[in-house]
């Protein structure tokens, strides 16, 4: 250690022990400044003010005992080295502390100043090395992710060129094409699309690994999504003469999930199932509820392929995993699909797993949380254990003008959603997640804890704020309406939980009525224009 003063924070409640340690420190060669406190709370307060070179820590303090003591210190200041001062009878606990990240321990009553000095010096050095290692690992990960994101960008440029010229020829824009030539070109185009998908996966996996994968949950029905995924993969399945079936429970609740991400997972699982199922086999998608787990919907994809062995089962969701026995190595892909799927499911707070026996086919299952209005509403509609007196459902409808490009529309309504969040009181109003898979037109709902009069102020504010958004009028029409939620007073009042459920049911019914009316309207509109 150089000649600088070493700042030591000593957390010790026994005055005799504290004096002894202080004495040993001062006896040593190096210049030491000791700050001694006798409670954990004071120690934590001191750590918040200044960072010492090392903490010397007694584990049994008036306000904390045993393992809890070092856990709280390390949680508070993970970068400060800690040396535990242990009694002779506590050595086992001190060892445990070392396993959990404490740098060292010393047995009290038995400490020489040389020993103490060395323990401190080593603790500081080791902690420094650990930090450097941690930083280096993070830098390496960051470098790798940047590299991959750069590579996937660079690969797109030549791929775009290939795609453009192949489609030019295929579309006959460079002269007539013989049927056989067209056939070959279609094969090229298929490979281009495959390469494109791989580049996309590479970037997605990089995002997943660095925590940058985004999901935008909406309130959606799985029925449409499953049908969409199945119809997208139907041609591939037909090509291999594989039966592709759907089994949906009659009554399925809505789920709270990002439709495009769920579609990604479904396509991935179906694509794998078809890939690993021999000709004339079958693939089945099922969506159901499980009695033991009422908060989730279970989605499973089963195939009649050759199944997965126990070793592969343990690794199959890992990044870059490839089935070593794959018959069809030429089209094996990057081994990123299941990894990305797992990350997507995890971001939805769901689970994903596989059950399979070799030779018996496999079933991949994932879960998605159901859309529970009651759960979302509970924190805002109650006040001091009582339901608030009145509620209004505010409906904000944004219908894009037909001339607006799609990408633009998404951006517009996202901005509107953001504005809406700023027009409500976050503690007593709730902007519900957007509904439905298609964002063709967007109806947003707010449950406001107010009466009709109070909601008039809110609807005015919403209209004003949204119209202030740059040329909203050239992009869409805006309708804001407010309807009171009629709650029947019951005497005596049922449990709060039941009251919230009742409110949620009524709001849900109002939303369904509105949406059905809107669908009827658009269908009628479509007929009129025909």
């Amino acid at each position, binding site marked *: 250690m150089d000649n600088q003063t070493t700042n030591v924070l000593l957390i010790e409640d026994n005055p005799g022990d504290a004096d002894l340690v202080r004495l040993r420190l001062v006896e040593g060669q190096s210049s030491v400044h000791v700050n001694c406190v006798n409670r954990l709370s004071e120690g934590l307060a001191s750590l918040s003010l200044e960072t010492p070179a090392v903490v010397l820590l007694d584990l049994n303090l008036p306000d904390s005992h045993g393992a809890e003591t070092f856990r709280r210190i390390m949680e508070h200041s993970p970068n400060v080295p800690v040396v535990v001062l242990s009694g002779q009878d506590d050595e086992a606990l001190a060892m445990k502390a070392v396993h959990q990240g404490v740098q060292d321990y010393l047995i009290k009553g038995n400490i020489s100043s040389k020993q103490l000095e060395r323990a401190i010096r080593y603790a500081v050095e080791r902690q420094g090395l650990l930090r450097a290692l941690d930083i280096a690992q993070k830098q390496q990960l960051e470098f790798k992710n940047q590299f991959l994101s750069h590579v996937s960008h660079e690969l797109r440029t030549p791929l*775009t*060129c290939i795609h453009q010229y192949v489609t*030019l020829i295929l579309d*006959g824009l460079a002269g007539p094409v013989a049927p056989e030539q067209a056939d070959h070109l279609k094969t090229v185009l298929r490979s*281009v699309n495959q390469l494109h998908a791989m580049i996309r996966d590479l970037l997605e996996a990089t995002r997943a690994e660095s925590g940058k994968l985004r999901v935008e949950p909406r309130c959606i029905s799985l029925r449409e999504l499953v049908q969409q995924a199945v119809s997208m993969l139907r041609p591939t399945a037909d090509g291999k003469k594989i039966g592709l079936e759907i089994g949906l429970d009659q009554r399925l609740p809505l789920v709270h999930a990002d439709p495009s991400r769920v579609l990604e997972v479904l396509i991935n699982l179906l694509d794998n199932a078809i890939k690993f199922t021999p000709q004339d086999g079958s693939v089945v998608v099922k969506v159901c509820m499980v009695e033991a787990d009422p908060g989730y919907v279970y989605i499973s994809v089963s195939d009649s392929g050759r199944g997965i062995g126990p070793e592969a089962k343990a690794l199959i969701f890992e990044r870059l995993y490839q089935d070593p026995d794959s018959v069809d190595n030429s089209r094996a892909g990057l081994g990123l699909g299941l990894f990305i799927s797992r990350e997507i499911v995890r971001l939805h707070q769901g689970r994903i797993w596989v059950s399979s026996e070799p030779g018996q086919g496999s079933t991949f299952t994932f879960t998605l949380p159901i859309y529970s209005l009651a759960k979302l509403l509970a924190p805002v509609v109650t006040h001091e254990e009582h339901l608030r007196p009145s509620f209004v459902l505010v409906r904000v409808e944004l219908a894009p003008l037909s001339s607006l490009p799609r990408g*633009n529309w998404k*951006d517009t309504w996202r901005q509107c959603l953001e504005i809406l969040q700023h027009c409500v009181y976050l503690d007593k109003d709730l902007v519900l997640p957007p509904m439905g898979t298609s964002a063709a037109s967007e109806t947003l709902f707010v449950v406001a804890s107010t009466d009709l009069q109070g909601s008039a102020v809110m609807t005015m504010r919403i209209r004003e704020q949204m119209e202030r958004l740059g040329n909203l009028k050239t992009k869409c029409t805006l309708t804001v309406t407010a309807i009171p939620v009629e709650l029947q007073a019951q005497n005596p009042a049922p449990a709060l939980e039941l009251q919230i459920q009742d409110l949620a049911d009524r709001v849900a019914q109002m939303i369904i009525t509105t949406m059905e009316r809107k669908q009827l309207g658009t269908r009628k509109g479509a007929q009129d224009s025909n």
Partner: protein
Amino acid sequence: MPRPKILVVDDDPDLLRALRLRLRANNYEVTTASDGYAAIASAQKERPALIILDLGLPVGDGFVVLDRLQNSDALSGIPVIVLSARDPQNNEEKALKAGAAAFFQKPADNDELLNVIRVSLGPGTPQAAAAWPS
């Protein structure tokens, strides 16, 4: 009726040639530029009805071009469609905020791109879809 003129800006000459063929086949007149400076000069001189713009360009990248167009009274009305290999997660919102009408990541689907061109040009432009062999 004159064919609407589209300015295509990209630093890859091969891609420019392909896009020119594709757009001409769909009844558009095409003019090209391969860097940011040339793009602005060409926009001033040719007054295109629409611009297809890459983001990674020499001599003033796509965002510089967007900024210049937005700040010019004569040019700010021209719809700009960004066609870039860059990650939409970091660039789409930025481009739309900078005044672009739409963002496409390369490689883009031809039908979707042509559709957005048609919509952005607005009503009264010749129906190019008929010339589109499927």
